[in-house]
């Protein structure tokens, strides 16, 4: 077994209550690495040519919870959740920061593949070289916070009971879903640590469809042995030196960006992206920090970036709401995108989204979309049961709850922005295009809080349009070469982007080599391994699912709103240049060896050892 891997994965058949251990060949691991890459490959192996007919929420749809070979050893520990995405129909390597990852490794496992559907709610409990399904009926229906509190207590008690004489049992690591996941809100998140989430992809609903409330692990073993331990320890120290030098990031996290991304780069969603500029100083970092931050340096396992800060509201009607800063994305999506510029209201709505089990980007995007449909006269007061207003906390408090519990219009919005557009169009006797012009998604994935119109942010023309993960702001496309060693790498090695940027890439690849022993180079990853993973993801994405097939070129595009001129601010009048998008898209396809419609060619599939996709791709060409 190459270094960095515990060496075994669990395969859990929830329908049959059966748990097995499996291993993968060195070749497969070198080719797909872990996390996002390996999950796409195993998903294909499980489903194969039936991909386009398989409902992602059907029992036969696999769900992956994987680490990677660098997880927990390289700074910034995360877990990768993947499978056929209920929103994009492709796969997303959706990651969350949680100690579940290092506990799973210490227990002797690299990941879990879930198949089938349990006949009643369960959670998986992983302990040293062992795993079992535990009844979770008493947890079903609980919000995120209560789920975590109860699980922490009952698992720690159980482990203590089993082995009382070894000293105190430390709390386990876990991921779980809230009501949104249970009620199959299509873009629901998988959550961890009350405010961390694997949000993109909608894997909360995939977990819900399997009656799987949580995955919990506690291990007492070592982190996996590595190929070159001395070099690894040296590189570990070196990497932390780079991270510790990032003083602004450590001091402020992304929590100062709620003001800066609007005022400076003019790329922050406001009222469902009708604007991207604001200069609301009320929404500045210090206004959050001074009044609400109760912990200024908060980190996950093996991280010194500590970009997280804990916020808590201690007075008033929202007393007791706890979340992180919120981080930039939720400042935007549970703040400015609702027309809200009040830190306290923003913290409340972020905490609410977390505890309901929404993805704090995706669910609120849909809520914003709904309120714009009301503004445009497409949805009425009666549809909501009240008069929705921009900037009104009550409005969005209600909509987020209605979505999570599928009440009233919430039942339709629960299908995610893209599908909801079609359903509402049908409801109102309108053409889908009349609504889709307000739907800010790419490939069914609502777009992260960084616009392309000002061109002043890190997101540009084809960042989302060309991405195999659509609107996912953590994994954007650029030129088909340099972007391959971004999130495609970190989500497969499975560690955090924020322990990656700021560290020389050559150092990271030396680290990868020292851990695994694979002959890894930056160029090798950018030209072979990365493209293999992305080409496989692209193939799965374009195969689509029942009732949802993306059209090449037409759907490889930005949402219509990103071509409207910015109405305000220093970049007023500026918009995304469609000609540049078209041109860069072709260059992107060309670099990756895809044809001019973005379908991988036979030669490319052969070159990347993906010939198993040829039959399906031939149909699409």
């Amino acid at each position, binding site marked *: 077994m190459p270094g960095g891997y515990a060496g075994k994965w669990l395969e859990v058949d929830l329908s049959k209550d059966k748990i097995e251990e499996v291993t993968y060949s060195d070749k497969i691991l070198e080719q797909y690495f872990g996390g996002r890459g390996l999950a796409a490959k195993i998903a294909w192996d499980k489903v194969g040519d039936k991909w386009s007919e398989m409902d992602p929420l059907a029992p036969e749809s696999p769900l992956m919870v994987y680490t990677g070979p660098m997880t*927990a*050893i390289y700074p910034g520990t995360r877990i990768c959740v993947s499978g056929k995405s209920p929103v994009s129909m492709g796969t997303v390597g959706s990651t969350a920061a949680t*100690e579940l990852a*290092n506990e799973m490794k*210490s227990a002797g496992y690299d990941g879990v593949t879930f198949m089938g559907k349990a006949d009643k709610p369960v959670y998986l409990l992983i302990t040293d070289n062992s795993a079992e399904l535990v009844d979770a009926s008493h947890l079903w229906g609980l919000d995120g*916070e209560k789920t*975590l*509190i*109860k699980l*922490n*207590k009952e698992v720690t008690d159980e482990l203590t009971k089993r082995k009382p*004489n*070894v*000293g*105190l049992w*430390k*709390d386990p690591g876990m991921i779980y879903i809230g009501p949104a996941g249970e009620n199959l809100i299509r873009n629901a998140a998988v959550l961890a*640590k*009350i*405010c961390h989430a694997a949000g993109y992809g909608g894997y909360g609903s995939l977990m819900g469809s399997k009656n799987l409330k949580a995955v919990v692990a506690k*291990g*007492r*073993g*070592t*982190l996996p*042995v590595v190929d070159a*331990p001395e070099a690894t*320890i040296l590189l*570990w120290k070196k990497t*932390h030196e780079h991270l*510790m030098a990032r003083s602004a990031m*450590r001091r402020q996290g992304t929590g100062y960006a709620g003001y800066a991304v609007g005022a400076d780069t003019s790329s922050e969603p406001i009222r469902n992206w009708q604007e991207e500029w604001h200069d609301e100083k009320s929404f500045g970092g210090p206004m959050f920090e001074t009044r609400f931050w*109760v*912990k200024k*340096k*908060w*980190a*996950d*396992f*093996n*991280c*010194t970036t*500590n970009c997280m800060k*804990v916020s*808590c509201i*201690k007075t008033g009607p929202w*007393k*007791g709401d*706890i979340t992180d800063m919120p981080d930039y994305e939720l400042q935007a999506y549970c703040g400015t995108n609702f027309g809200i510029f009040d830190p306290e209201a923003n913290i409340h709505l972020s905490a609410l989204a977390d505890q309901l089990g929404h993805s704090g980007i995706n669910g609120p995007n849909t809520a914003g979309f709904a309120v714009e449909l009301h503004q445009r006269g497409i949805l009425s007061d009666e549809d909501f049961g009240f008069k929705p207003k921009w900037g009104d906390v009550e409005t969005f408090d209600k909509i987020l709850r209605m979505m999570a519990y599928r009440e009233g219009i919430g039942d339709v919005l629960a299908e995610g922005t893209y599908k909801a557009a079609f359903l509402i169009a049908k409801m109102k006797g309108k053409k889908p295009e009349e609504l889709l012009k307000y739907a800010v998604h790419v490939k069914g994935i609502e777009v992260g809080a960084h616009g392309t119109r000002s061109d002043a942010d890190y997101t540009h023309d084809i960042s989302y349009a060309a991405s195999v993960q659509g609107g996912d702001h953590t994994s954007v496309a650029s030129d088909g070469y340099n972007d391959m060693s971004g999130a495609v790498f970190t989500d497969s090695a499975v560690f955090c982007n924020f322990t990656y940027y700021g560290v020389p890439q050559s150092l990271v690849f030396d680290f990868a080599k020292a851990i695994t022993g694979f002959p890894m180079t930056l160029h090798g990853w950018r030209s072979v391994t990365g493209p293999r993973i992305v080409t496989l993801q692209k193939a799965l994405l374009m195969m689509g699912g029942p009732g949802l097939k993306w059209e090449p070129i037409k759907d490889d595009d930005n949402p219509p709103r990103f071509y409207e001129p910015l109405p305000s601010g220093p970049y007023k009048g500026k918009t995304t240049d469609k000609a540049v998008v078209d041109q860069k898209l072709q260059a992107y396809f060309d670099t990756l060896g895809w044809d001019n419609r973005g379908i991988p060619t036979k030669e490319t599939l052969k070159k990347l050892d993906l010939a198993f996709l040829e039959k399906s791709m031939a149909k699409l060409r």
Partner: protein
Amino acid sequence: MVKPIWISRDYDACSGCRRCELACSIHHEGWMWPEASRVRVFMPFPGLEVPHLCSQCQDYPCIESCKFDALSIDPDTDAVIVDREACTSCGLCITACPGTVPTLHPGDNKANICDLCGGEPKCVEVCVEAGYNALTIVHEEPNIHRKLYSRNPVDTARDLAVKMFGEKGLEVIE
């Protein structure tokens, strides 16, 4: 090394990065092994991170409890030293400790207690280096407060919860 030496802990300052666990296990075990670490960071609720390690009580109840002379005081540092040959894994030191700090090592099943790395604790090094200063070294004569830090980490977290979250803090740990 300046004697005496004691590791002070400031719970509010702990980020929860657990690099102390990694540094400790790298030093003692040659590799990253969080559960073999002599310092372990408990987190009964996110944001409430409590580094848990030996407080070097003045009366050393763990040493008193040991029937096999497996525990002794390091004359240089005053740390508790475990004689792994003599230790029978009976666990008496764990129950004798007011904070239930010792563990049985997940590898050899022997009592596992902080030995102050012979006077240069690696956990403190990485914590200070990162600017957290949750674990720092003090060079003052032993005082009576030390033993009060030897406490169940979940109880410590319950107090921290109220300080940090106000009334809500009463509900976050079951």
